[in-house]
C-alpha cells in the first residue's frame, strides 16, 4: 500500500514538474523560442545540467540527481516536437506506420518462441501486448537499443495504460537521450544504457552513458515501501557520483555534440554481423576485416548525409513513396540523390547529383529493370550466393554490448539477402525471419499468439526441462515436446485449438497425433527491405565479371536472384530446414525463369545472326536503293506513274 502511494506520488511529481516547466517556458516550445546562433559553426555547448525537477546540478550536491535531457537540452531545443520524430513515435497511434522495418524480436528459448514485435502497424509484426508484454517490459528488454522517449516516458504523459507492477516510480523515465545520436565524444558509452536499464536505473542512463558521473547500485534494491520524498535510499540502491572534473567553475559541463552525427553512433543500433550461408553453418564465419562497409561511407558521407531530418526529427528513411508529395523526402532516396526528382519545383532537387553523387546511364540494361527493380536490388546487401546468409543485428542480437561468448547460432534466425516482390510490384532485397510461437486458432481461422509465460505455465510438464535455457546452450524443440505441450494447452471447453508455428510449418494435434501443415498466413516469414551496405558499381548485379555477361547475374538458369535458396528455419528438431528457392517466395513461374535462363545461352548467337542479317539487308538496300532513286527521278521526269505493265 505504501509502495503504491509512493508510485503515485512519484508519477504526480513528474507530471507536475512537466506541467510547471511547460507553463514557465522551461521546455522550449515552438521555433520562436529557440536559442539559435544561425551559424554553420557549431555552438559550444558548455551548459548547466538540470535534473528532472528543473533544478540546476552541481557536482558537490549532497544527494545528486541524474541530469535530465528533457530539462537540460529542452531549455533551448523543442523536446516535445522532437519526441514525435521517427525514432520515438512508434507507439503513438497517430504516427504513420511507414514501410515495414526491422521489428523487435521476442525470443524465448524455453518455449521455442521467436516473434517479430512492433507498435507500428507492420504486416506480420505483432503488437507486443498480444504476447503479454507491457511497455515496461518492452523497455526492459529492448531499451538497450533505443534512444529513449516514446514508451520510455509515456507513463508520465498519461497516454499508456497503468501498469501497477511496473517500477516506473523508482526507476524513473527513460527520456530521449539526445546524446545517443548527437554525441561526438569518443567516451560516450552506449553500453552504459543497457547496464543502467538492466539495473532499473532508467533516469540515470543518460548521465552514465555521457560519463558525467558514475552510477552504482540499482533501484531493484529499494525496499518495496520506499518513498522517494521521505526515505533515505539504502547503500546498495542507485547512487550517483558526478565527475567533478567535468564541471567548470560555474558548474557547467561541456557537451561535445554535433549535427553531423558520425556513423559509429548509428551503428550502435544498426550494426549487422553477416554470418555464413544457411546451408553451410558448419563452415568458417566470414572474416569481418575483409568487409568494406558501405560505399557511401567509404566516399566520405555519413548516414545522416542521406537520412536527414529537420527539427521534427522525422528522419528520411529513403524509400520512394515514404512521404508522397514531399520533394525533400524524395530528394534523399537513391534516385533522388543520383538522378534528381523531375517533379520537384526546386531546381537543385530536380537536377540531382546531390553530394557529388555520380549519374550512371546504366548502358545495356533494359529500362524495364528500373521500373521493376529497386536500386537496392542490384546495389545493396551482400552479393547473393547459392543460399541466403544468416545475419545478426544489433537490435535483435544485442550487438554492441560486450559479450565473450556471443554465439552465431542464436535466435532469432534472420537471413539476407532474400529477393522478393513488394506490394508496389518492385523487386528488392529483404531480410527475412520465420516466426515461431504458440497460438490459438480463432473462429475465423486467425491465429492469436500465446504469451510464453502462459505456455510455460500450462505446459510445464512438456517444456519445464527447458527453463532457463541460454543462447549458447540452446536446443530446438522436439516434436514430442510440441505434441505434449499442445495436448496440455488444449482447452476442453473450446477456446481455440492450440497450434505451434515454426519455420513456416503449423503443428497441430489431430486425434492425438501431431500433424503439420504449411501455407498458414500466420506462419509466413516476416520480411523487411534491406538497403545497406551499398556495394560499389562494379559489384552491382548486372555488372558482370570475368568476361561473363552481367545479364547472367540474374538471368542464368541457376542465378541467386531467382534460384538462391532460403532456409525455412524454425526452432524445431531436426534442424535441417527446407531450402526454398526465392522464385517460390516471389510466386514466379520456375519454368518461365528456366526458359529465360536458356534464352540467354543463345543470346550471343542471336546477336550474331541479327548483325549479319542487318548487314545483308543494308547492302541490298544500298545497291538497289541507288537504282531505285534513278528510276524515281526518271519517272518524275515523265510526269510520274509506273512503267508500262507495272500497275499498282
Amino acid at each position, binding site marked *: 500500500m505504501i509502495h503504491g502511494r509512493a508510485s503515485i506520488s512519484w508519477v504526480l511529481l513528474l507530471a507536475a514538474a512537466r506541467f510547471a516547466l511547460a507553463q514557465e517556458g522551461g521546455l522550449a516550445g515552438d521555433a520562436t523560442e529557440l536559442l539559435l546562433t544561425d551559424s554553420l559553426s557549431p555552438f559550444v555547448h558548455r551548459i548547466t545540467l538540470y535534473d528532472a525537477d528543473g533544478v540546476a546540478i552541481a557536482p558537490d550536491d549532497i544527494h545528486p540527481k541524474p541530469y535530465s535531457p528533457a530539462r537540460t537540452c529542452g531549455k533551448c531545443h523543442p523536446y516535445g516536437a522532437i519526441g514525435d520524430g521517427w525514432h520515438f513515435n512508434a507507439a503513438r497511434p497517430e504516427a504513420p506506420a511507414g514501410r515495414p522495418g526491422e521489428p523487435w524480436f521476442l525470443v524465448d528459448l524455453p518455449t521455442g518462441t521467436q516473434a517479430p514485435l512492433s507498435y507500428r502497424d507492420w504486416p506480420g509484426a505483432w503488437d507486443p501486448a498480444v504476447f503479454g508484454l507491457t511497455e515496461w517490459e518492452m523497455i526492459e528488454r529492448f531499451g538497450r537499443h533505443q534512444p529513449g522517449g516514446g514508451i520510455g516516458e509515456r507513463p508520465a504523459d498519461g497516454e499508456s495504460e497503468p501498469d501497477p507492477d511496473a517500477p516506473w516510480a523508482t526507476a524513473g523515465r527513460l527520456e530521449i537521450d539526445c546524446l545517443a545520436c548527437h554525441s561526438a565524444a569518443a567516451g560516450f558509452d552506449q553500453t552504459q544504457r543497457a547496464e543502467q536499464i538492466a539495473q532499473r536505473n532508467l533516469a540515470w542512463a543518460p548521465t552514465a552513458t555521457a560519463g558525467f558521473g558514475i552510477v552504482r547500485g540499482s533501484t531493484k534494491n529499494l525496499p518495496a515501501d520506499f518513498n522517494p520524498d521521505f526515505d533515505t535510499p539504502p547503500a546498495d540502491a542507485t547512487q550517483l557520483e558526478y565527475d567533478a572534473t567535468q564541471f567548470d567553475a560555474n558548474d557547467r559541463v561541456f557537451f561535445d555534440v554535433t549535427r553531423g552525427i558520425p556513423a559509429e553512433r548509428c551503428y550502435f543500433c544498426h550494426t549487422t554481423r553477416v554470418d555464413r550461408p544457411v546451408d553451410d553453418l558448419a563452415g568458417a564465419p566470414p572474416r569481418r576485416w575483409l568487409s568494406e562497409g558501405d560505399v557511401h561511407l567509404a566516399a566520405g558521407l555519413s548516414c545522416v548525409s542521406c537520412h536527414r531530418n529537420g527539427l521534427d526529427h522525422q528522419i528520411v528513411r529513403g524509400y520512394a513513396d515514404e512521404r508522397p508529395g514531399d520533394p525533400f523526402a524524395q530528394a534523399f532516396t537513391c534516385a533522388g540523390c543520383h538522378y534528381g526528382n523531375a517533379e520537384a519545383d526546386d531546381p537543385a532537387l530536380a537536377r540531382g547529383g546531390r553530394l557529388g553523387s555520380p549519374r550512371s*546511364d*546504366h*548502358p*545495356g*540494361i*533494359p*529500362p*524495364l529493370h*528500373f*521500373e521493376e527493380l529497386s536500386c537496392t536490388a542490384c546495389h545493396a546487401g551482400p552479393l547473393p550466393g547459392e543460399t541466403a546468409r544468416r545475419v545478426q543485428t544489433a537490435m535483435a542480437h544485442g550487438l554492441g554490448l560486450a559479450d565473450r561468448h556471443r554465439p552465431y547460432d542464436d535466435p532469432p534466425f534472420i537471413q539476407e539477402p532474400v529477393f522478393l516482390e513488394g506490394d508496389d510490384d518492385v523487386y528488392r532485397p529483404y531480410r527475412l525471419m520465420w516466426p515461431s510461437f504458440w497460438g490459438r486458432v480463432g473462429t475465423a481461422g486467425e491465429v492469436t499468439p500465446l504469451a510464453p509465460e502462459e505456455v510455460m505455465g500450462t505446459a510445464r510438464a512438456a517444456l519445464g526441462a527447458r527453463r532457463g535455457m541460454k543462447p549458447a546452450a540452446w536446443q530446438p524443440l522436439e516434436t514430442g515436446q510440441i505434441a505434449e505441450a499442445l495436448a496440455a494447452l488444449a482447452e476442453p471447453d473450446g477456446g481455440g485449438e492450440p497450434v505451434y508455428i515454426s519455420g513456416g510449418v503449423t503443428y497441430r494435434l489431430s486425434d492425438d497425433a501431431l500433424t503439420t501443415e504449411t501455407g498458414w498466413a500466420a506462419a509466413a516469414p516476416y520480411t523487411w527491405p534491406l538497403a545497406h551496405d551499398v556495394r560499389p558499381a562494379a559489384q552491382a548485379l548486372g555488372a558482370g565479371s570475368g568476361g561473363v555477361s552481367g545479364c547472367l547475374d540474374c538471368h542464368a538458369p541457376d542465378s541467386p536472384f531467382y534460384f538462391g535458396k532460403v532456409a525455412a528455419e524454425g526452432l524445431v528438431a531436426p534442424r535441417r530446414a527446407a531450402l526454398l528457392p526465392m522464385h517460390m517466395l516471389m510466386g514466379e*513461374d520456375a519454368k*518461365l525463369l528456366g*526458359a*529465360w535462363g536458356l*534464352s540467354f545461352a*543463345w*543470346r550471343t548467337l*542471336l*546477336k550474331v*545472326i*541479327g*548483325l*549479319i*542479317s*542487318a548487314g*545483308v*539487308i*543494308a547492302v*541490298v*538496300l544500298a*545497291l*538497289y536503293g541507288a*537504282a*531505285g532513286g534513278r*528510276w*524515281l527521278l*526518271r*519517272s518524275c521526269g515523265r510526269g510520274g506513274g*509506273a*512503267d508500262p*505493265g*507495272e*500497275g*499498282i
Partner: protein
Amino acid sequence: MFRLWILATIVAVTLATTLHSVRTAGRGPGAAAPLPSRLRRLGRVCYLLVLAGVGLAGLTGVVGAGLRGVPMEGYGLLLHVAAGGVFAPALAALAVLWADRNRFGSPQPFSLGQKICFWMMLACGLVMILTGIGPMFRLFGTEAQRAVIAIHRHAALALLATAIFHIYLSVRYRGV
C-alpha cells in the same frame, strides 16, 4: 500514345486495301517472271517465315503489350525475341532472293505496290533488327534505350502495316 498509332495504322491499312480493291477491280494478275523453281520455292519459304516472324512478333508486341499499354515481359517477350530470331535471317535471305525481281522498272512479276511494300519492309526490317539487338549491347543508356525501343515499336508498326498490304497485293495478283 502508341495505342493511337496502332489504331491509326489499322484504319490506314483497311482504307488502303479497300480503296485499292475498288480501284483495281476487274484487272487480272500479272505474269510471273522466269525464275528457277528451287529459288522460287526458297523465296516463298523465306517470305512465309518473314510473315510468320512479323505475325508472332506483332501479336506479342503490338497486341500483347502495345494495345494493353504494358511493357513486354514473360513468355510474351520470350516469343517476341524468338520470332525476331526467325524474322531477321529470313528477311535477309528474302532481300537477296527478291531484290532483283522487285527492282523498279523491271518487268513482271510484281506490281509497283508490291515493290514499294517490299522495299519498305526491308527498310523497316533493318531498323527493327538494329533497334532490337542494339539494346543488347552496352551502347545505350537508359534514356537512349527508351528512344531506341520507341523507334523499334514504330518501325514495327510500319512493317506490320506494309506486310499486311503486301499480303493483300500478293493475294490480289497472285504474284509470289
